[in-house]
């Protein structure tokens, strides 16, 4: 049974230029109603909706809910069939900073656009017959090349272990599904009313969700992580924060000025968008052992993917520092920084596990960033090799689809929905897992065909 959920005329959006700092970035969107959807993102109501094809309009891109301005942009409208995909399309040229790009994409998503899959624009162009003779030939050639790559990737990446695990989950679900289908197709057999095997469903959902959670890197780059900057008052948190902001790689300072609770900024760490939170506005943890300050600080640290912990080298590791470090969850990645070394003799001893640094002179900042990157990316070294890890976006998406479908299945069973409805979601889950292990489906065909292109092309 074939299952796929990607439509070929819903609204999709993707960055067409590389996700990197540049003067201008181009965001491309396509799909039925795409122009009226995009109108909701534009500062001049109706300007886009009524625009002629192939016309550019200057204005502000707004978040559709908050109506907050994100950036001044040029929005070009293409009307079907005169567009790359043959559908109504919109291209937005915005300023090329990572935060602007992210905010723009987020706005599109909030307005109902779905992030495009790899090669999806070209697929649409192809299906619309927009690719002519030479292009079609080029596609065919590309396809063949990409297929080999794609299958090598899909199969090669898929370690035997992962495949076996997914296959085992799939088999357990197939047994549940077969039970449902037999009841549906043989209503008169004396099998009686067999209850749904809810325990198997829950186990499968947990397994699938756990597998999906092993996928880190992709999500890391796409969604970024939260990193807390912690330490005693005089350890130099604010200085480090500002130093990072002064660096070229800092994007924008996004200060929640009204509450002055804490300061956060987005920083690019090895390509990962990191939301850095300075707890400077909070009362120092070592002064107030209990209370609101600790609670908030604790919350931020608990939510963070990693902590950068600064110690004032001239004061040494205090009891407060020791208490703080001990209070973190045992598996919390911590980058320990031995700051202010410029105030000490060059040959003084640095405690084990600390990075020698001086925010003042800039010494060690690269080291801090490198250490931070390796902690948040859960670098290869962090893996013991025994884990089954999902490392492709496609696998992860399919696992998530399976997990969501199982969630719906369980809910349907719980709500007493009829078996044919339960079967819809169960089939979806089985289909998604089947696609991971390489069973042929319509989806696979198209995926294999166009998956080799980069997103947005």
């Amino acid at each position, binding site marked *: 049974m074939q299952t796929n959920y990607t439509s070929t005329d819903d609204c999709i959006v993707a960055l067409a230029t590389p996700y990197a700092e540049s003067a201008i970035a181009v965001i491309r969107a396509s799909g039925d109603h795409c122009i009226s959807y995009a109108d909701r993102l534009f500062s001049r109501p109706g300007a886009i909706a009524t625009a002629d094809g192939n016309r550019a309009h200057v204005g502000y891109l707004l978040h559709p809910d908050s109506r907050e301005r994100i950036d001044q942009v040029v929005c070009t409208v293409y009307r079907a069939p005169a567009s790359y995909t043959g559908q109504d399309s919109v291209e937005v040229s915005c300023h090329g900073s990572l935060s602007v790009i992210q905010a723009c994409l987020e706005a599109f998503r909030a307005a109902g656009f779905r992030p495009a899959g790899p090669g999806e624009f070209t697929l649409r162009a192809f299906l619309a017959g927009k690719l002519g003779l030479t292009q079609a030939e080029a596609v065919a050639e590309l396809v063949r090349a990409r297929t080999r790559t794609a299958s090598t990737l899909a199969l090669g990446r898929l370690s035997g272990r992962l495949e076996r695990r997914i296959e085992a989950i799939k088999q357990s679900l197939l047994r549940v599904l077969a039970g449902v289908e037999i009841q549906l197709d043989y209503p008169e057999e004396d099998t009686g009313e067999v209850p749904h095997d809810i325990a198997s469903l829950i186990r499968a959902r947990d397994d699938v969700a756990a597998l999906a959670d092993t996928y880190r890197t992709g999500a890391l780059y796409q969604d970024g992580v939260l990193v807390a900057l912690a330490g005693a008052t005089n350890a130099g948190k604010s200085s480090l924060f500002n130093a990072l902001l002064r660096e070229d790689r800092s994007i924008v300072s996004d200060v929640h000025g009204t509450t002055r609770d804490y300061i956060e900024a987005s920083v690019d760490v090895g390509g990962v968008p990191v939301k850095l939170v300075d707890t400077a506005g909070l009362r120092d943890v070592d002064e107030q052992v209990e209370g609101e300050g600790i609670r908030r600080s604790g919350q931020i640290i608990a939510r963070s993917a990693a902590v950068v912990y600064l110690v004032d080298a001239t004061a040494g590791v205090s009891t407060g520092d020791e208490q703080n470090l001990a209070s973190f969850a045992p598996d919390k990645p911590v980058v320990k920084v031995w700051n202010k070394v410029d105030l000490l003799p060059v040959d003084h001893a640095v405690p084990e596990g600390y990075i020698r640094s001086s925010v003042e002179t800039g010494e060690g900042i690269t080291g801090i960033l490198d250490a931070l990157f390796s902690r948040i990316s859960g670098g290869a070294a962090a893996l013991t090799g025994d884990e089954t890890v999902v490392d492709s976006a496609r696998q992860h998406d399919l696992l998530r689809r399976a997990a969501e479908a199982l969630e719906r299945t369980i809910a349907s069973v719980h709500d007493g929905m009829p078996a044919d409805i339960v079967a819809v979601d169960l089939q979806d889950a089985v289909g998604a897992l089947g696609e991971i292990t390489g069973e042929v489906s319509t989806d696979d065909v*198209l995926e294999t065909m166009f998956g080799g292109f980069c997103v947005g092309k």
Partner: protein
Amino acid sequence: MDFDAIVIGGGHAGIEAAMCMSRLGFETMMVTQNLDCIGKMSCNPAVGGLAKGNMVREIDALGGEMGRLIDATMIQFRVLNRSRGPAVQAPRAQADKKAYEVLAKKTVERQDHLHLYMDTVVDLTFDSSGRTVTGVVTQRGKRMSAKVVVLTTGTFLNGKVFIGEYSETAGRLAEPAAFGLDRTLAGLGFRMGRMKTGTPARVARWSLDFDKMEEQFGDDDVVPFSFSHTSVNRPKLSCYITFTNRQTHRVLEENMARSPLYSGLIVGSGPRYCPSIEDKVVKFPDKDRHQIFIEPEGLDTEEMYLNGISSSMPEDVQEAFIHTIPGLEHAELMRPGYAVEYDYIDPSQLYPTMEAKLCENLFIAGQTNGSSGYEEAAGQGLIAGINAARRLQGAPPFVLSRAEAYIGVLCDDLVTLGTKEPYRMFTSRAEHRLVLRADSCDMRLFEKGYELGLHPEARYEAFCRKRDTIAEIKELLQKRHLSQNDFDSDAASAMNGKKLLLERHVGKSLYQILKDPQLSLADVQYVAPELVEANGEIIPGEWLRQVELDVKYEGYVARQEKQILRMDKIERIRIPDGFDFDAVTGLSTESREKLNQIRPLNVGQASRISGVRNSDIAVLMASVQRRRS
């Protein structure tokens, strides 16, 4: 030309094909071995059931006969799977076999432009190319010419009946098999094979002890199969349920060597889903009982059908094991069960129009294609008839997609995948099951039937009234919101126990409220009297039910429809007639072979052929598109 069309065979496929072509004004000749066997039910005395009931209603919505035939001759009606959701609920009726045959014969006899002749077709004639059929030759040497030929030979082609050590050449017990066409087809280059199916013994009603069985009644409420009937008023008979036991199984085990299935006499593949009792005993040794439905074969006969224990054991063994079953201890056998083995053609040699790829204007339908079941045969017969007629009209082919009808699934499966065992429809074969509901067949297909010219105006107008009323009801449900005032009215007493539930929904439209799994249309009906009456007439409950199901399952259907739309796009990338797969560089050898063999009509179909690789589909898409530009 003697005729526009010739139909070989008068079974369920032949009837639909012949009726459809003659209805469209084409002079059609139905040649059958025995005029007294038109519309004969060779096996179980029932029409419909899971997915099959949907197909009967699809046939009716397209303008076919089967629905009207069974409505007029049923002796029990039940909706199966009532508790398991709308998509898998299916109407099933016990038929009065003789009455069904009589009505089927009367129907074809009285049809304008339809001619009947009793003879056996043994050969086909061709034009000088040898690749276009021009007529038929009969056993008695009669030659008839026609522009199109529809072949529906059922189990008769080279048929052989087995009862234990006994065998005879027959298509049904004591009805002669047909020979000759098997050689003609083989000569054309058809890949052919043997299939096997079986039927149980019939026993005399008076010899059964019904006190030892459970009586199974039909539904009081009969929903007609045919959309042209508003009600069915027929006598009702009960069925009975009993079970085999260890002793039954022991009798069978002890005599297994005498079964033609296990002694090697039968070589054809039988259906896994409908095994004989000896098969069940061998394959499920742990089961200590198997269910049997005892079904009446008609109002005017004592014969009862033993559904669940088809067998080709020797007659003495059949008698012995049947007598071990509660209620059947003294059963008098009137006809033995038997197996029948017959020639079928690999249906992947057909287009989805049921036309043979190897021979122009030759259409093949029914059990000849390796299917099983009256409904599967009728569905193919109708598609063959429609497309043969369209060939005569010079009109483009008529193919139903997998998303439109079970008949679409049926034809696509057969011609794309072929079949290794008698093909039976299941709801699980349809990926778009939720939209293929039995109650919505008319909304899916009636318009098509009308456009094909298979519905008279009056019937079409009735359909339009239903379609429009359903649309109006939905609109009304959208517009009307539940208000607090509704609870003060006199009608509030009609809320039964649902008042608390309903109160949670104040302010919402009735349409939204209906999506609550715990509420039904009946629960909100009192709020809007228009839901009961339209234009002074009571709205039939069946229409309301259709609205209710449409609304309730809209979300789920939307999810499936997304898939359908998506799938449709590659389905719509057509592969041109005579497309040269050999000229496509980059196809793998295996895929090229399969593509040449199946000759898919579009890329969607190509993608479902087993053994054709994804990368090859991509290459194919690219070259088909290139050809077009």
